């Protein structure tokens, strides 16, 4: 039973801009995005709850612990607005359940899919081009960002229109997209290894008339042998207990200082 169409597309837009521009302003250790979610919902709450008691209950419901993926939160916002529009303050328990039930799975999907695309494709290609002295690569991200902003609008509208069932119908497709993006990512990462890691051995052996550059000998065995070994080493290190990315960075710097200081690499 739909009471009335109280929520206009203008209200949806207000929620969307609040979440897009200011949603995480007050991110904190206690309720994480909780206050930000509440802040984003306020335009809708004002429309739905004219009675102060109801408003208080609604504010309290939304100002609770919440943490999800930026873009995918729009689906939850959309579904939430539809539920509250339909059942008003009666829907609060169901709204809480939907928020807490969906934020975990959606955060997982979002972080994986968007993390893979951003890091393995956009920023690795951009950085590769920058290392060649080409600043054009840094703008690839703007196209990706524009796409994500459009996608957010679609998420919110679809969540509002179709409720939570969108998540189940989308889940399988999103997994397939993640797998496909991972394959593209791995192809690019495989190509990054010989392209962006620089390790040159300046040592030259002389035996009478014959000089032998160690680097060219190694190159004949396999190009980019040292970069490959280094990636394998760090990959192995990262699998060890108590290892963090920061520690791995410090270890690589220590290795560099030793090898560079003694002139083995340069």
């Amino acid at each position, binding site marked *: 039973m739909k009471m009335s169409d109280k929520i206009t597309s203008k209200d949806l837009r207000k929620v969307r801009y609040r979440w897009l521009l200011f949603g995480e302003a007050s991110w904190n250790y206690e309720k994480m995005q909780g206050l930000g979610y509440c802040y984003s919902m306020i335009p809708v709450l004002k429309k739905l709850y004219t009675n*102060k008691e109801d408003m208080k209950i609604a504010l309290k419901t939304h100002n609770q612990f919440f943490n999800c993926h930026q873009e995918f939160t729009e689906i939850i916002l959309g579904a939430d607005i539809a539920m509250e529009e339909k059942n008003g303050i009666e829907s609060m328990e169901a709204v809480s359940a939907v928020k807490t039930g969906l934020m975990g799975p959606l955060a997982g999907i979002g972080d994986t899919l968007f993390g893979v695309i951003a890091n393995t494709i956009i920023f690795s290609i951009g950085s590769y081009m920058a290392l060649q002295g080409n600043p054009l690569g840094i703008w690839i991200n703007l196209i990706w960002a524009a796409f994500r902003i459009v996608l957010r609008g679609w998420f919110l509208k679809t969540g509002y229109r179709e409720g939570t069932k969108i998540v189940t119908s989308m889940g399988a497709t999103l997994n397939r997209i993640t797998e496909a993006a991972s394959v593209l990512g791995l*192809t690019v990462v495989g190509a990054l290894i010989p392209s962006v890691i620089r390790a040159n051995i300046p040592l030259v052996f002389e035996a009478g008339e014959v000089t032998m550059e160690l680097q060219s000998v190694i190159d004949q065995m396999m190009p980019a042998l040292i970069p490959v070994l280094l990636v394998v080493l760090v990959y192995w290190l990262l699998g060890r207990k108590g290892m963090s990315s920061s520690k791995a960075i410090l270890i690589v710097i220590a290795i560099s*200082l030793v090898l560079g200081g003694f002139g083995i690499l340069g």
Partner: protein
Amino acid sequence: MQIALWQVLALSLYAFLAINDIIHMDLGLNRPLFAGFFAGLVMGDIGLGLAIGATLQLMVLGVATFGGSSMPDFMSAALIGTALSVIANEGMEFGIGLAVPVGMLLIQLDVFARFINTFIQHRADAYTEKCELKKIERIHLLGLFTWGLSRALPVAICLIFGNEITQTLTNIMPAWLMSGLKVAGGLLPAVGIAILLKYLPTKKYIPYMLFGFLLAAYLKIPMLGIAIAGVAFAILVFGRSGKQAAVVGSLANEGGMDEDE
């Protein structure tokens, strides 16, 4: 070279905006790559900024914040590293050597900002009890400044004392350290690549990685060409998983019908 006041202001303002960008629209301002480029632009050496930014970016590929954990701040570090290298008239190795420890120290300020926002949350909780909508909105937005200042202040301080810092560093830095840092600049991207491989389904799809390596190392195909090959593989994998899903789906349907009968 001496750093000018407008340069300090421009870079600090950038840091303020960049951190608020990544937690919202993520146009890319908070990525070391973009920060290095911007610092290079402001300081008059885009090539140097790009090299420092790209090296730091490759180093942290795959380092992502999940569920609000803090990570080293290599955005501010790229700004500081690039600006101080230009001031000191040194190369990229100087900037990287400076940026890495600075970025790791600045992780503390990220923790601090998230902690300060807890007070904002408590105030908002109190306003919720009294239904004060305007005050809830205002206190929430105050958080933009906690975030912004946690990046802008350290950048401003490092740049204001930039001349002193670089003079001291160039005086005490021995030659072996500089050559070691130069090597580090070349090797550090390996860390980012390894982290990425850790969280990608590498074991499942290793043939694609080997193929990418082959195209680059042996056939010397430029990166965009390799990306096209990657897109081709991705389309194939996407299509194949669709067929599998369809088969599984129809099997499940049949099973369901059996149960109905």
